[in-house]
């Protein structure tokens, strides 16, 4: 339904490499997530797919149409919700929806069934100006406006950024229901925890794809075991674990530290020494940490993302 083949895009006469050699494809009816932090290239990819930007190299298609040559046709059959919920601030909820419906040559009533669940939540405020809505309501209205013409593909660029936690969860529930109706949805988000709610995801950082797969497969692909370590003082234990010779990586995750161990043999592959994690526990207790808890855990998307980002020291390197 949506394809990107070796897409690259630079800004500022090549000085800023927004997207480099990105290839991915999304099947019809899929809920696909593009996961990555600010500046990763998510918005650039979305703009290329919605025909707003021309890629420097590569080819992109939506519903089988080329984004460069057939851009007009694509613009007629996709729904787009850019980062800032582009709504007309001084038009009311109703007026916004009616405008977008007529823009696409349809009416609100024609496809009401599709947006009913969402619209009903903001219907009590239908005469309120869009500028006066809360973040969560704007998000719902923007979604309705993008759906009102029953698009084949829905592009949602960071729809949950800057919105409260409750609305975020509700939004994803709405997306699941939409997927059930057969709409292909591409969502971008910087929140790693939302990755699990997608059918398939692409992890992107600095304009390059780190991985494309189902969340479950990405998690399964984590090499080796991951452990969560906890004790009384978070900060001290972090420093100590980092100094432990057997530690491969150690990152804070809330009250636990996720620790991976170096492989036993000098070659890069292979399991860690069988003495781990007990060796770490003894080391920490020797250092004076009390109630050290170490347990094996299933790595999450964020663990994988961090691993795929590679070695990033905290000193600046270009």
């Amino acid at each position, binding site marked *: 339904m949506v394809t990107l083949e070796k897409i690259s895009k630079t800004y500022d006469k090549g000085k800023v490499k927004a997207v480099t050699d990105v290839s991915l494809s999304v099947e019809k009816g899929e809920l696909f997530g593009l996961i990555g932090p600010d500046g990763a290239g998510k918005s650039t990819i979305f*703009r290329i797919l*919605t*025909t*707003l*930007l*021309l890629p420097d190299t590569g080819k992109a298609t939506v519903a089988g149409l080329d984004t460069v040559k057939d*851009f*007009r046709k694509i*613009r*007629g059959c*996709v729904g*787009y*919700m*850019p*980062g*800032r919920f*582009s*709504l*007309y*601030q001084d038009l009311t909820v109703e007026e916004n929806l009616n405008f*977008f419906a007529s*823009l*696409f*040559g349809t009416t609100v009533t024609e496809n009401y069934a599709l947006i009913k669940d969402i619209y009903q939540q903001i219907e009590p405020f239908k005469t309120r100006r869009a500028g006066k809505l809360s973040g969560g309501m704007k998000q719902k209205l923007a979604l309705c*406006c*993008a759906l009102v013409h029953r698009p084949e593909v829905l592009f949602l660029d960071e729809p949950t950024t800057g919105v409260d936690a409750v609305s975020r969860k509700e939004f994803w529930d709405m997306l699941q229901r939409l997927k059930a109706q057969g709409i292909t949805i591409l969502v971008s988000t910087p929140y790693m925890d939302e990755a699990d709610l997608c059918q398939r995801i692409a992890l992107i950082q600095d304009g390059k794809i780190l991985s494309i797969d189902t969340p479950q497969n990405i998690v399964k692909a984590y090499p080796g075991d991951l452990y969560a370590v906890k004790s009384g003082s978070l900060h001290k234990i972090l420093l100590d674990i980092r100094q432990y010779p057997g530690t491969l990586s150690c990152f804070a995750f809330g009250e636990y530290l996720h620790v991976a161990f170096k492989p036993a043999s000098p070659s890069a592959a292979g399991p860690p020494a069988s003495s781990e994690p007990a060796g770490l526990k003894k080391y920490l207790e020797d250092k004076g940490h009390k109630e050290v808890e170490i347990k094996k855990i299933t790595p999450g998307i964020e663990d994988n993302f961090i691993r795929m980002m590679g070695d990033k020291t905290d000193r600046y390197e270009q």
Partner: protein
Amino acid sequence: MKQFLVFVRKEFYHVFRDRRTLLILFGLPIVQILLFGFALTTEIKNAKIVVVDYARDVASQQIITRIAASSYFSIGQSAMTYEEMYKSFREGKVKCALVFPANFNNDLLHSNKAQVQIIADASDPNTARTLTNYLTAIIGSYQDQLNATVTIPYRILPETRMLYNPEMNGSMNFIPGVIALVLMIVCTTLTSVSIVKEKEMGTMEVLLVSPFKPLYVILSKAVPYLALSLINFIIILLMGVFLLHVPIRGNIFLLFAESTLFIISCLSFGLLISGLTNSQQTAMLVSMMGMMLPTILFTGFLFPLENMPVPLQVIANIIPSKWYYSIVKAIMLKGLGFAYVWKETLILIGMTAILLTISLKRFKIRLQ
């Protein structure tokens, strides 16, 4: 104190690294001085004058020679009929005329006094007054020359007639100019901000990803402002007529039609500016400040265009308000019909068409 200097140093960094600020700092004063230095002159040179000489005798010839020698005047034609003279006035070709009656010299010799008629286009009362004074002075000096050697003085009595504006009402010239200025600035600013606002708010991005037509977007932005500007125009007109006693001598429908055309051309100008800028602030700045100076200078109601150096007069030709101003004066003050303003109308239509075409072509259907 040290803290203060720290702030000052930072501000200097900001200033020197912002090209736009530097342009305003250094570019603007230079342009202004050049413009005002050359354009701001109330001195009149080479004003076109025609002479209707029924006398064709020695005295009239001598006076005409003096006028020709003066740098204030340039004689268009020195042997016209009354009818031809009025036509020249109507067409705006001439600002001033001198009429010698048939027995000019004889009257002088035999009665020691003779009359001449000075006719001036008083739709611009200041210029009319100045020209009349110059002429009177030239005639006066001829009179003095005659009287230098005689005991009984000769008297040449100029009878002055102010065309179109006998009361020398200053507003006559001013109101059409103000109408042009106000419409130009308001209409341009309103539309220029409108499109840029969508770009800034981000709604343009969503609009682009839809089966929209650029022509609809552009025209739909202009329509409400057209209606409101016409209302604006009516208000200014009413104020001019009832408060400042400016007449509407010509066809009011023609005036309306021409004004609608002018408003559309201003709106198109605004749309063009819209396509060139990316922020509302810049759009507003360019429309208001950027347009105000050229409009005031080059419309011709504050500083007569004929007094400017030729390059500036050429520039004036691309300012729509210049053409509209002559149209309004012709219709309102001189009571003339379409036959006299068709050229200017055509030019305005042409300008509007070009502006709209460029705006359409420049409308970016992509974000970059």
